[in-house]
């Protein structure tokens, strides 16, 4: 191994190509760093902060930090996992995540990452925001209660589908996903079930209608094996489609 082009992740040597981020290189080497807003098909974003790793005493997001030779990167340490747990807990209390009532349960990346870092409880005070469900589209439904603002759909629609169906509006805690259509409804937008944007949502916010329970609970993506072995929701959706 050429040490000039590698860094160490929790002591393990990870080779990288120039231009790769820590996340790119780690994933390519089969090393898992938990993440939600990252999807290798899309430009790095760095918003969810779940992929924070420690480099030189500072926390940086692995999905945006460029790989550099000789870096010592800590990821799977108790304090970093605790930080990730707190970030996930913030995401859980910010929205309305009622797993037992969600069609996506068991195949949800938010759940799976939370399992991976050992999150047992939401810890913080719930916001219980009042949010809508948009069932206006014939094939898809959007439940805004579950949106975690990862912008994967925004980016996929813009960068892969060339459609700009989604955008983020508002600011601060009032930030929210909005839809490009005269009425703001999905059914009046250019969205189609074949869009890449329809297949990148890591949670149960953008869901196909019908067939939500075609895979029984207990046999779902993350029911038996952790996300570090199974991979992302979008990657598995991709496999299922191809």
């Amino acid at each position, binding site marked *: 191994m050429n040490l000039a082009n590698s860094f160490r992740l929790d002591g393990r040597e990870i080779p990288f190509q120039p231009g790769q981020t820590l996340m790119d290189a780690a994933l390519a080497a089969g090393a898992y760093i938990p993440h939600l807003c990252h999807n290798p098909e899309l430009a790095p974003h760095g918003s969810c902060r779940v992929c924070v790793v420690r480099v030189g005493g500072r926390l940086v997001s692995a999905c945006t930090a460029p790989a550099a030779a000789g870096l010592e990167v800590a990821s799977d340490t108790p304090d970093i996992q605790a930080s990730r747990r707190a970030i996930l807990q913030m995401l859980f209390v910010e929205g309305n*995540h*009622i797993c037992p009532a969600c069609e996506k349960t068991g195949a949800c990346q938010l759940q799976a990452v939370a399992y991976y870092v*050992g999150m*047992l409880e939401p810890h913080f005070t*719930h916001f219980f925001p009042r949010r809508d469900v948009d069932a206006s589209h014939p094939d898809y439904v959007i439940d805004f209660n579950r949106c975690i603002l990862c912008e994967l759909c925004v980016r996929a629609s813009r960068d892969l589908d060339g459609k700009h169906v989604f955008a983020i509006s508002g600011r601060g805690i009032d930030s929210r996903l909005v839809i490009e259509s005269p009425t703001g409804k999905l059914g009046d937008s250019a969205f189609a079930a074949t869009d890449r944007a329809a297949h990148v949502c890591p949670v149960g916010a953008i869901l196909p209608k019908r067939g939500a329970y075609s895979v029984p609970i207990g046999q779902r993506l993350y029911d038996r094996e*952790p996300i570090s072995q199974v991979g992302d929701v979008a990657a598995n959706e991709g496999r299922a489609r191809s």
Partner: protein
Amino acid sequence: MSDSPKIRVATTSLAGCFGCHMSFLDIDERILDLVDLVEFDRSPITDIKQLGPCDLGLVEGGVANAENVEVLREFRRQCKVLVALGACAVNGGIPAMRNAFPLADCLTESYVGGIGIHNPGVPNDPEIPLLLNKVHPIHEVVKVDYFLPGCPPSGDAIWTFLTELLAGQAISLPYTQLHYD
């Protein structure tokens, strides 16, 4: 088994469905091992109504009304260790889905304008606990020492949790026993 005094355990269900208690019974014959270690105080299992000092309190369900608050506080006062058992206690669960609606809408739908209602009118008998504006997880009302998520947590998860807790170990659930659904 040891001669040390048994661990005293109480359980209750607040705004829950008793599913966690049913799941508790899913530990099956292991309950015989458990009763060697513990004895039950107030619990649907014993039908003891009055809560006494306990080592461990298991609380199923979230906090939806004034009575839930009183019972939860009593558990906190009497139990050295308090556990949020199951999704509703941990984050409000299914009952918290009513939080999407104003309380007045929920009551009107249930007692006034809904389908098949005779003698419409929201009950106001002082015997009936008043509803809180929203359903809350129990950690928003009292200090909670442990959380065991799941809807319900499986009998195996409850067993793992109790045996490790009673053995004074850190709780470490196998992957398949940690779930939120």
